[in-house]
């Protein structure tokens, strides 16, 4: 195995350039799909690598439940610095599994709570307007998926803008964006290097829904105005986030700018462009990550098999 077993833990770094460039150069739907697949594949490979190191690491723990033959010196020496690395892997794997299960539980809890809250509302429409002085609009995934909008939000938009808002939220439900969001979130729990990917996926799903809304109301400018107005009333009602004041524009101004600009083509950027190049780097990184993780798995498997007496 050698040092190659560590590569799947580090190769997620190759996804950074595409996470940065996807926003400007990829059609949102393509961006969401590409980034999610890269994220999930790299997360699986990274967990596999961590698992292999874990097996090696447990070898030094007396009385561990794994077969004795797995503690064979040959297996241990298959990994450089096996003692330190093994201990770190044990800690790492436990941390990763805990973080993932917490994320998953929270996801399911929030969904269940939202569905429970909405249960008394009649099912004749997927739109639920709730009397609330605080402006908000959410897509609540589930069976059936629902769009929840407060009266305050409805009141602050005119009829056309309301149509854009509803089209946006329905696009979230129809395209099951929550699955991409969950996948990206779990991936970033598994390997912190994948966190920029999670952010990019979150932004790209919003853009995806914006583009579909613009297509469905047939007016990009109107959709941009709906997003901007909704954000402005939300801002005046909600707490101000305490970010550094010199930060780049937040997601909402970027979405509005994108909607006011001409639509991006659905085609992929040419390979020679920076975005095409970044996409290829990410794809190569993902592939390499998979190859090294599998390679290490096979190597360890062969060692274990050789060391097992039966």
């Amino acid at each position: 195995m050698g040092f190659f077993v560590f590569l799947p833990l580090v190769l997620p770094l190759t996804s950074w350039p595409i996470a940065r460039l996807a926003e400007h150069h990829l059609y949102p739907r393509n961006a969401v799909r590409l980034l999610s697949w890269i994220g999930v594949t790299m997360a699986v490979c990274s967990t596999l690598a961590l698992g292999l190191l874990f097996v090696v690491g447990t070898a030094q723990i007396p009385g561990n439940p794994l077969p004795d033959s797995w503690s064979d010196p040959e297996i241990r020496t298959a990994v450089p610095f096996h003692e330190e690395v093994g201990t770190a892997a044990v800690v790492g794997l436990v941390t990763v599994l805990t973080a993932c299960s917490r994320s998953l539980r929270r996801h399911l809890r929030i969904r269940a709570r939202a569905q429970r809250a909405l249960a008394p509302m009649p099912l004749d429409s997927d739109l639920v307007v709730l009397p609330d002085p605080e402006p908000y609009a959410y897509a609540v995934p589930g069976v059936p998926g629902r769009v929840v909008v407060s009266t305050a939000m409805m009141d602050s938009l005119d009829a056309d803008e309301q149509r854009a808002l509803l089209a946006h939220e329905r696009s979230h439900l129809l395209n099951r964006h929550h699955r991409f969001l969950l996948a990206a979130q779990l991936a970033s729990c598994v390997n912190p290097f994948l966190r920029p990917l999670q952010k990019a996926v979150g932004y790209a799903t919003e853009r995806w829904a914006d583009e579909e809304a613009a297509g469905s109301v047939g007016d990009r400018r109107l959709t941009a105005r709906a997003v901007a107005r909704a954000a402005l009333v939300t801002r005046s009602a909600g707490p101000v986030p305490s970010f550094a004041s010199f930060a780049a524009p937040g997601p909402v101004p970027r979405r509005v700018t994108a909607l006011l600009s001409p639509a991006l083509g659905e085609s992929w950027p040419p390979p020679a462009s920076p975005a095409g190049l970044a996409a290829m780097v990410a794809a190569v990184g993902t592939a390499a990550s998979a190859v090294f993780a599998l390679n290490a798995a096979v190597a360890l498997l062969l060692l274990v098999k050789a060391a097992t007496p039966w």
Partner: protein
Amino acid sequence: MELAGPEPDGGDSGDGEEGGRRRRGQGELATEVLTVLHGAPGPVTASWVQEQLGGELAYTTVMTILSRLLAKQAVVRSRVGRAYVWSAAADAAGLTARRMRRLLDTEPDRDAVLASFVTALTPEDEQVLRSLLNAADPPQDGAGRGGGR
């Protein structure tokens, strides 16, 4: 179920009101009390509710049920003179709105699950957004909502 709403939820676990009378579930009692409050001409006292229920429940039982409903925010209470008067808080939409708000207030990470239409803005974002809006809006209503399109 957070609210002992239209459906009886306690089953036969019953409050077990005194005497050999028929045992009724908490949910059923709560529903009866709510029905009475919904039918009331306005805010009413607990003894009025007790009368409407046919007087077969003890005053303290009615008070207990009302307090539970109050904790669940299904009824509201206000003070008139030295007594409390009660009224039903919740039509379905209002109740749902309150539950939704509680969810939004207590789950800071909800945005990863429930896709929000927009996220909060920084003051700088707000400025950028206003100038974008002004640039995007046709001149006749560039200053604000201007009655829509």
